[in-house]
């Protein structure tokens, strides 16, 4: 009963790009990953970490240099396997002169839909992504968020078993991001058996949506786990700021947690939820005021962005006042 059905199975996959006659670029290195059915899974990594390359191999646009990929037990790239997938590429664009409704019809037909089913599905999708009002407009006039939602709608036309989105939130303003997040949640609620696999370089997207996550760095899989495990691995900690603390507690926190005085109050970090709860009870019982409690993480950001180039960069000081 509890055996998970695996929708995408990636086995020891390596992809090298030829970038010159003798030069090669390793984009994905011996990646092994299983995506279970019915979950929202995030593929997290910085730009250039191999997310798009992985996704394109799942669709068969790129052929792996080594290794195999199976989609619902079909080899990746076959028509059979593609008929199960709905795909949203990175930065989708459409021919400007086509109208929203026409595009959905067109892509629906390529999935083999027709007749009443097609009309119904088109209506339904326009409704779902909130583009009913713009159905007869040319997509050249759509703003980025609308194009993105239309592109999601076209991926959903055949009610696919598997949705693969490449950076669905990238390039959108905060409102647009929220809309896409809500849309992905709505899709998951409406089609709970559909697996959603999406890539992003933003941690909070993954936290807001996913049940598990795979973390890529420079083509290498760093972690693949459920989202709550990520928090543990992540080295999550909590930072607390309090005021009006009595002297005993203050001395204790300074000694135990290295608490320091900041402009907001006394600030210190604790490592686990248990200690957090204990401290918060203590503080409120002794009449202290809790200014803020924040969840912090160090590990993940470090994994993601540890070789920041400009971290220690300083602008050269100009001599003030001239010569």
């Amino acid at each position, binding site marked *: 009963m509890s055996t998970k059905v695996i929708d995408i199975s990636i086995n020891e996959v390596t992809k090298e*790009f030829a970038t010159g006659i003798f030069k090669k670029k390793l984009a994905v290195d011996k990646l092994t990953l299983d995506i279970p059915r019915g979950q929202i899974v995030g593929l997290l990594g910085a730009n250039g970490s191999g997310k798009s390359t992985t996704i*394109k191999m799942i*669709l068969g*646009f*790129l*052929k792996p240099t080594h290794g195999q990929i199976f989609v619902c037990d079909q080899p990746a790239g076959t*028509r*059979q396997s*593609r*008929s199960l*997938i*709905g*795909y949203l*590429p*990175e*930065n*989708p*664009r*459409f*021919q*400007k*002169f*086509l109208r929203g409704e026409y595009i959905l019809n*067109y*892509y629906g*037909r*390529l*999935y*083999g839909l027709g007749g009443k089913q097609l009309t119904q599905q088109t209506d339904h999708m326009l409704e779902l992504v909130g583009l009913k009002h713009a159905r007869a407009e040319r997509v050249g006039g759509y703003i980025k968020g609308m194009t993105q939602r239309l*592109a999601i709608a*076209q*991926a959903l036309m055949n009610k696919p078993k598997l949705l693969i989105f490449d950076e669905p939130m990238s390039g959108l303003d905060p409102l647009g991001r929220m809309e896409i997040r809500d849309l992905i949640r709505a899709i998951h609620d409406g089609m709970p058996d559909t697996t959603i696999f999406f890539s992003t370089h933003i941690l909070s997207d993954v936290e807001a949506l996913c049940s598990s996550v795979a973390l890529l760095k420079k083509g290498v899989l760093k972690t693949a786990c459920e989202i709550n495990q990520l928090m543990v691995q992540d080295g999550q900690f909590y930072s607390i700021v309090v005021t009006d603390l009595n002297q005993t507690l203050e001395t204790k926190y300074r000694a135990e947690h290295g608490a320091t005085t900041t402009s907001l109050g006394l600030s210190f970090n604790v490592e686990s939820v248990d200690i957090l709860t204990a401290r918060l009870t203590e503080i409120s019982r002794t009449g202290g005021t809790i200014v803020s409690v924040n969840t912090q993480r160090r590990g993940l950001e470090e994994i993601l962005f540890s070789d920041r180039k400009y971290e220690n960069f300083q602008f050269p000081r100009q001599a003030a006042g001239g010569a």
Partner: protein
Amino acid sequence: MTNSLRIAWVAIQELLHEKVSYLLIGFALFSLGMSLVFGQMTYGEQAKLTLDFMLGATQISMLLFAIFMGISLFQKELSMGSISMILSKPISRASFLLGKYLGQVCMQFLITWMMGLMTCLFCLRFGTGSFSAAAVFQTVTLIAWEAAIITAVTYAFAVNSGAVVTSLGAASIFFIGHGRDTVSSNLRETSDLILWNSAKTVLPDLEIFNMKALASYSQSIEWNEFFLASCYGTVCVAFYLALAVLFFSRRDIAT
């Protein structure tokens, strides 16, 4: 096949929206106008010159249309990423390519026939002497066949290389296709001849489609000859399209 037709229909709409295609059509219309003026001014073989000029202009515009629209249809879709949405659907790369090709070639036949019709109308209105509509029809149809071959050649290049290589490659095949006799008569070395003769088997002989000279003397060709030329066109198209499909199915689509 139905998928190819759907893709073809979108390609036709796209061509209709392409500014470059207006430019080429405009160019054709302009030359038709010019040839009219030209025909008016010359005495003697007035009708012949008009026809010469018009048919030449039709051929050149179709050559340009074939190459530039082929590149544009392809590269635009590649750079836009809409190709990946299409190819993520359960359709083969071959039907995608075939669809684009069909759309473009249908447009080309339509445009050439329109130009042919205009040529006929001009000749009827201003031309003197004998004039054969059948000859004009045959000539422009063969021009459209030639353009269809060049389009297939363009696709074979475009699936693997950029705009510059593609246009140079397709243009070279056009010029070699018309200059086979010149090349043959200029080669002396045996090794060159062997090379050239093997190259000739895969390079199309475009002079087969050239009856402009006949038409300008208002002479048509036998219909079975016309039919045979069309058959030859089909074979060439099939060969180059097959090459294009082969290259395209093997390549990585990185966008």
